[in-house]
């Protein structure tokens, strides 16, 4: 097979991978924020639910989570298409790690900030939203960048539930052409490019936000 053909087939797969990342990443961020804030600020029973979510999704294999959502849930009457299953499984999985990022960033805001906001008589809600979170948010960006790259790499699992992502295309090409060197070389390169692009995006975001926050954050 011509090298150009290989690349064009793999690029189709890469587009699918990018689609999954583009949908799972926002889901992960939303989960991270919601459960991170519940974990920090809500009363005990809700906190327990958050802890269960975090520990369950961190403590079990992402592949098995994916299998559960795609292959097992139909037995309970919940059938979802492969793409949705992929986005949900990866979003929930990465979101669980993100929850700890949110918590860590909030807890890294100096105690004095919280005390000053009490002394100025801000309400509990104002303290969190106006004083603590704007400062914590900048601290979340670099670890979130790491998680985004983890997500890109984790998407290769979706090839196992019939989705034609980059890894899936690579494997089927390799099976038919046996040109494994070229194929997996290009695959490595494409994953690397995607990760680098995300890393750059997060760098820019961090820079932008630190500026908006009056150089309160990291430079």
């Amino acid at each position, binding site marked *: 097979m011509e090298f150009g053909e290989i690349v064009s087939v793999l690029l189709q797969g890469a587009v699918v991978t990018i689609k999954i990342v583009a949908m799972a990443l926002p889901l992960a961020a939303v989960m991270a924020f919601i459960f991170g804030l519940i974990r920090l600020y809500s009363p005990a029973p809700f906190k327990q639910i958050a802890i269960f979510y975090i520990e369950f999704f961190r403590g079990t294999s992402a592949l098995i989570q994916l299998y559960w959502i795609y292959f097992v849930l139909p037995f309970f009457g919940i059938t979802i298409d492969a793409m949705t299953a992929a986005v949900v499984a990866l979003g929930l999985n990465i979101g669980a790690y993100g929850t700890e990022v949110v918590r860590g960033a909030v807890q890294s805001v*100096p105690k*004095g*900030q919280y*005390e*000053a906001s*009490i*002394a*100025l*008589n*801000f*309400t*509990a809600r*104002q303290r969190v939203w*106006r*004083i603590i979170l*704007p*400062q914590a948010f900048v601290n979340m960006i670099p670890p979130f960048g790491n998680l985004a790259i983890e997500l890109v790499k984790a998407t290769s699992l979706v090839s196992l539930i019939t989705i034609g992502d980059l890894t899936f295309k690579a494997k089927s090409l390799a099976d038919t052409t046996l040109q494994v060197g070229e194929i997996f070389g290009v695959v490595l390169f494409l994953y690397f490019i995607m990760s680098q692009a995300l890393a750059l995006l997060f760098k820019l975001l961090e820079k932008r936000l630190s500026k908006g*926050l*009056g*150089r*309160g954050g990291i430079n």
Partner: protein
Amino acid sequence: MSTPIIEFKNVKKRFGDTTIFSDFNFTVEENEIVSIIGPSGSGKSTLLRILMTLEGIDGGYINVAGESLWHMYWQGQYVPANSKHLHKMRNHLGMVFQHFNLFPHMSVKRNITEAPMRVKGMSREEAEESAEKLLNLVGLADKADSYPNDLSGGQKQRVGIARALAMKPSILLLDEITSALDPELVDEVLDVIRNLVKEDSFTMLLVTHEMYFAREISDRVCFFDKGTIVEEGKPEEIFTAPKHERTKAFLNAYLGQ
């Protein structure tokens, strides 16, 4: 004699196994300026932090402006204060911190206007006008649009004072406000307090290691040791003729006399 504006009665405070106050009594009259001096770990800052509701108490009670600070009257009896009660009580109090605790993500102006606008519901125009006056008072009119991290320590602390004053507290708590500053920056901060006291009457409670300043500004000086007031009186008495041995030893060490 009028009712004191601050009153501690049999207050108990522990941190784990460490007892800070076992049975603490203390009063401050309205418009009185009281300095608290003493060795570290004697409970000086804890006293201010309890008043600012940053620390709870384990027993006794505290009145501020005629109302219980940590308790509220509910269905015929006193119960621990809820957040609404504490919110109301905090209106009386303002605090300036040793480490400034300015909000780094807000400009100097917003550091000063944010609480009056969000907490007191002041209009932006009103809050900014008041901030401008306060920045003039602390000599930082040209820094309104700077961010805290661009200021020197002394400038930060002057913003800290302006920020506390913007809420118009009737009681001002100053917690070692010059302890984190380089020596040459101490006076610019103390001068602000000197001017403040000259212009207006304040109830002020300050924990300080600046003995000369305490002597000059206070109506009363309290020497603290191990959670009790060992000796208190007019500044001249305490600084020139301390009666208690521990006060003498402390002042000797501090003033090198």
